[in-house]
């Protein structure tokens, strides 16, 4: 395991060097005269526009001449697709901002309740097994002291590994999930989990990961991995968990 991990890391470093070398070799052309700002466009569509709860729909969007594109507040590429599976009817908002102004597009996904007998679960193919395994290897949970969001020394190491793996896979998007133990108030624990997720996010940013590749969420004490009332169990729950988003 260590052997193959080292190989991966080595490959990542080589790749980074190669990119840098190619980048350095390029000569920058003289700056062209500034073109007049072109109109910003934004379109967003959902296919299908009506799903049953549990199914998913694909959002497809494209924009022109925008420097800042967000989908429901999350920064996204100028054009792209994203699978969504809302449990209730949801309207998605695309906002494109450019030199000449802001354009918006919306698409609604109508959710109907599934028929009474749920269809038998179909085995889903897992095309990204190797990515998942690779990710799971690097992105182990990090743990916190009671009521604290300070990163422990071993958390710094884990986050450096995650950063390295993410830089080697620029298509990865990672959700950082902050969790707390069962003690104290539900609401305060959500805020504490938020702070723990943000602590890991800040460290990944310091390690060169792009903010666009990171999403944070707090589960507070809502999703414990261990349910006994003792310190051993509480420690297991005071954690950031990392999930590779598909």
């Amino acid at each position, binding site marked *: 395991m260590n052997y193959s991990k080292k190989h991966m890391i080595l490959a990542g470093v080589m790749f980074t060097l190669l990119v840098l070398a190619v980048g350095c070799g390029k000569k920058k052309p003289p700056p062209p005269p500034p073109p007049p700002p072109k109109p910003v466009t934004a379109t967003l569509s959902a296919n299908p526009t009506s799903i049953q*709860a549990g199914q998913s729909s694909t959002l497809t969007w494209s924009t022109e001449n925008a420097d800042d594109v967000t989908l*429901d*507040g*999350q920064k996204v590429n100028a054009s792209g697709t994203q699978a*969504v599976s*809302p*449990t*209730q009817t949801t*309207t998605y908002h695309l906002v494109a901002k450019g030199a000449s102004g802001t354009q918006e597009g919306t698409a609604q996904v109508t959710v109907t309740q599934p028929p009474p007998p749920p269809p038998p679960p179909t085995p889903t193919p897992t095309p990204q097994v190797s990515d998942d395994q690779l990710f799971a290897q690097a992105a182990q949970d990090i743990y916190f002291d*009671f*009521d604290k969001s300070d990163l422990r020394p071993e958390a710094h190491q884990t986050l450096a590994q995650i950063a390295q793996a993410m830089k080697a896979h620029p298509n990865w998007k990672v959700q950082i999930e902050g969790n707390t133990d069962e*003690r*104290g*108030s*539900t*609401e*305060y624990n*959500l*805020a*504490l989990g*938020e*702070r723990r997720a*943000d602590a890991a*996010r*800040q460290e990944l940013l310091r390690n060169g990961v792009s903010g666009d590749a990171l999403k*944070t*969420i*707090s589960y507070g004490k*809502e999703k414990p991995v261990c349910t006994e009332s003792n*310190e051993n169990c509480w420690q297991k729950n005071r954690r950031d968990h990392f999930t590779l988003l598909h």
Partner: protein
Amino acid sequence: MIKTRTALALFLFVALFSLSQLAAQDWIRTGTNRGAPIRVAVPDFKQSTADPANQPMLTTFNDTLWNDLDNAGIFEMVAKSFYPAGSFGAPADLKLDAWGNPPPNAAMVAFGNLGASGGKLEVQGWLYDVKNPTSPQVLGKQYREDATVDNARVIAHRFANEIITRLGGVPGATESKIYFISNRTGNKEVWSMDYDGGSQKQVTKLGGIALSPRISPDNSRLAFSGLRDSWQIMMYSFDVDRLVSFPRHPGGNYSPAWSSDGTKIAFSSSMGTGASEIYIADASGAGARRLTNGRTDVSPVFNPRTNGQIAFVSGRTGLPQIYIMDADGSNVQRITDQGYAVSPSWSPNGLLLAFAWVRNYGPGVLGGADIYIMDIASKQIVQLTHDGGRNDFPSWSPDGRHIVFQSNRSGTEQIWSVLADGTHLQQLTRTGRNSQPNWSYR
């Protein structure tokens, strides 16, 4: 224990004094000392028809009316064993002397009759001041609804509230609702119940996790924090019985709070800084702006008397403490000085804060939290719960006489209510796990 109760009663009497002062003109003088409980007798209502459907409705009505008056906090219920023999369905059945003299020695008698006919339930109820023989009638009420056990309960709550309003000076809590989170369907959803635990009903069908329900002051909408792909403030409308749109924000959005005039919503969000801060917005959710910068700020609650101040929880100095600020974010002051203090609830008269507190937090162990009440002006603190377990999320009743809270003292998290003087503790829920109670404004 008795000492504590006495201290609590004294303290609350002083704190609630301005509330009762406002209503002093409505107070019925009974010859007893002001503040001393009024002795009320409530003989069982009499059947007025021979309909076989009467019995379950009659039982529910009698139990509900008795419990409502017993729980009101302003009456001393005269035990039924002291009552004169007979049944008392109409004023002509009542001999005032027999009630006003010992053994009953009652000041007031509530009585009447109930009967179904043609699918309708008809109830007549009276309240008599038995020490005022020249004009004893204080109340005479008549109710007519479809003949169901639920309606028998509703009518009892209404009649009880008339009595409490008349004798106590302010409307009671008997017609109010409590909103809470229950996992009894397998998911955490918002549920509602009567103030005494009756008529428990599911409100949301989110299928994810719903937390922190907060009913609007006019009872038309319910704000809560719901998890689908992220935590968002969600809004349920009782006018259309479904979720209605509310602005989404990046990050996690938690613990909404209404101003008592229904025009503003405060909540906690990480949309701006990546950490949780208190925001204030219009009731529509528009115009959200940040008020705090504490990096772990949650659980805002408006001073319902003025809406000019917000109490909230912050972990800015370590363990969470309660803070108060002006509603524009200025004049932040910390009001608890030790331990682990969370979940503030502001009393309707604006003078008291109830909150959950592990007062003496020791390293490594966070034991049971208890509910405390602070008089904000004097910073005096009184402990309300002493009976073990973790107690959290206090919420004041609209009349300021009761507090509902969650506790695991029975082994699982359940909802309990207690009079603000520490008496009349009762368990309101028993199915599944139930938490985060929120008492309606009326």
